[in-house]
Each structure stands twice: as structure tokens, then as C-alpha cells.
């Protein structure tokens, strides 16, 4: 076991916590959310930053959970493992939320479309877009990936994302990172 190497990586990247594995449960999400709330209190982040951080974290994680469930229902066979990292960039006073999971090429198109629609909108435009999408929405509240990315964009300062093709399959690794600039009180 390379614990000291792992510790160094965690410290260097200011990782607050991470989760990696198969089915991500709501119970785990709730526990991680509480841990984030606690972290916010210790660092005196204030309500606005805390709400933004929780929003990004919960939306991203639940997006991943919903996706993994949808894929399982369709009997699509690929590795359902997902990675979520919440970290603090020590030098720059930024928080970041990073996720990585596997998606099909069809879903890569959908996700790309959702993100491209919103990544260049300013906060006011995002708010307006959010309201329009919500008004148009379908019956099922549980699906909401489009609305979810908009919420994330409203709550952070920068979004980075990437798809890399998995050799020998039609699937892609999808990585997403939301950066929140904070001013500690």
C-alpha cells in the first residue's frame, strides 16, 4: 500500500474528500454533503459560498447517480465506477469539484449539447435560461441533467470538461471540473 504517496497527492491537490467506486448511494451523498457543510463552517466560508459549493457537488453527484442508474436499466454493459473529488486549491483560494465517469457516445452528444448551450452565458442569462428550461420541462422531476448543468454553471466561476475515447469501445471517459473562487472571511 502506498499510503504516504496517496497522502502527498491528497495534500498537494488540497483534496477535501473523494469517492470512487460503483453504485454511489444517496446515503453516501448525504454524508458527504454534511461533511462539506462542516468543512464550510470550519473555514468560515459564509452562506453564499457554502450554498454554491453544495449546489455544484449535489447536482454533479446526482447527475452521475441518475446516469449510472439509467445505464443499468438499459442493460448497457460498461464500468459504472465513478469518481468525485472535492478539493481546495491552497494557493488560489478556489474550491473545485471534479467528476469522472464513463458515458456512451450517444450521451456524449447530449451532454456536449447541454453544456455548450450554457457555458458562455453570464449569470443573468443563466438565470433566464434556467427559468425557461424549468417551464418547458417534462413530467419526470428526477431527470434533469440539462437543468442540473445550468445550476452548476450558476454556482461556479469556471467549467472545464473533456471526453476521451476508450480504446476498443464506443464509450468515453467524461471528466468535468467546476471551479469556485472564494474569498475567505
Amino acid at each position, binding site marked *: 500500500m502506498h499510503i504516504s504517496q496517496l497522502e502527498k497527492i491528497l495534500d498537494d491537490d488540497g483534496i477535501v474528500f473523494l469517492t470512487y467506486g460503483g453504485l454511489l448511494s444517496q446515503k453516501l451523498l448525504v454524508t458527504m454533503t454534511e461533511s462539506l457543510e462542516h468543512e464550510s463552517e470550519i473555514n468560515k466560508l459564509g452562506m453564499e459560498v457554502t*450554498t*454554491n459549493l453544495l*449546489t455544484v457537488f*449535489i*447536482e454533479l453527484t446526482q447527475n452521475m447517480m441518475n446516469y449510472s442508474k439509467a445505464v443499468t436499466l438499459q442493460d448497457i454493459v460498461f464500468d459504472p465506477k465513478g469518481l468525485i473529488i472535492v478539493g481546495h486549491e491552497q494557493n488560489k483560494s478556489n474550491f473545485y469539484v471534479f467528476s469522472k465517469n464513463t458515458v456512451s457516445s450517444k450521451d456524449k452528444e447530449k451532454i456536449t449539447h447541454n453544456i455548450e448551450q450554457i457555458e458562455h452565458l453570464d449569470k443573468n442569462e443563466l438565470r433566464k435560461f434556467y*427559468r425557461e428550461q424549468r417551464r418547458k420541462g417534462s413530467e419526470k*422531476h428526477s431527470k*434533469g441533467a440539462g*437543468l442540473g448543468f445550468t445550476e452548476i454553471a450558476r454556482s461556479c466561476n469556471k467549467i472545464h470538461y473533456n471526453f476521451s475515447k476508450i480504446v476498443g469501445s464506443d464509450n468515453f471517459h467524461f471528466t468535468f471540473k467546476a471551479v469556485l473562487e472564494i474569498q475567505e472571511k
Partner: protein
Amino acid sequence: MDNFIAEGTQHTPNISMNASTGVISMSGQSYPENTFEFYQPVMAWLLDFFASTPQTDIEVNMEIIYFNSGSSKFFFDFFDIFDAEKNNYKITINWIYNPENTRALEAGEDFIEDFVNLSINLVTTK
């Protein structure tokens, strides 16, 4: 008809809906895994309430600290039901929020704009 009571958890709000007083309250956090499934009984109760209750005063108190996008969609559909009944009942909605919670304030403002015919008040705590 029976009242509806649900005790809140870390990820779902306290919900209390009283058929005789016409007071409906929700408070806490809302980020259930499946909002459609979680709020389905709430919708069913509300529709049943309107179908079986003659004209009365209705007071809705919403004090939601954080809600996910699925919940946001639910609240929209929830207010939509009140909007459909606005001519049959005297409905007052209070959107209660902590003044430091900008997102909660914005959410309240957005609902006011989306439902111009409903009486929605922004009420601060503290």
C-alpha cells in the same frame, strides 16, 4: 380528508398539509434521489384537497434552505396547481428565506415572475 405529515430528513423537508385549516408548510432541505417519487404523494394529496374542499382560505409557507434542480421542477409544478385554482380559492404563498441566502431570494423572485397571478410574499427570517 386526512392531513399529510412528513418528518424531514437531511435531504427532504418537513411537510405538513392540513385539510381543515388550509395551511400547507414545507421547511428544510430538498434533494431527494428521485424527486418525482418523493413528492408524488404530496401532489396526490393536493389534487385530492382541491377536488374535495369548497372555497376556503389557503396559506402556503415554504421555507426551503437548499433544493436541487429536481426539487425546483417540483416546486414549479406545485405552484402551477395553485395557479390553476386561483379563481376558486383565496391563496397566499409565503416564500420564507434567510436574507443571507441569495439563491433562496432569487428562487422566490423567479417564482413571483413565473406566477404573476399568484399572491407570493417574500418573507425574511431573523
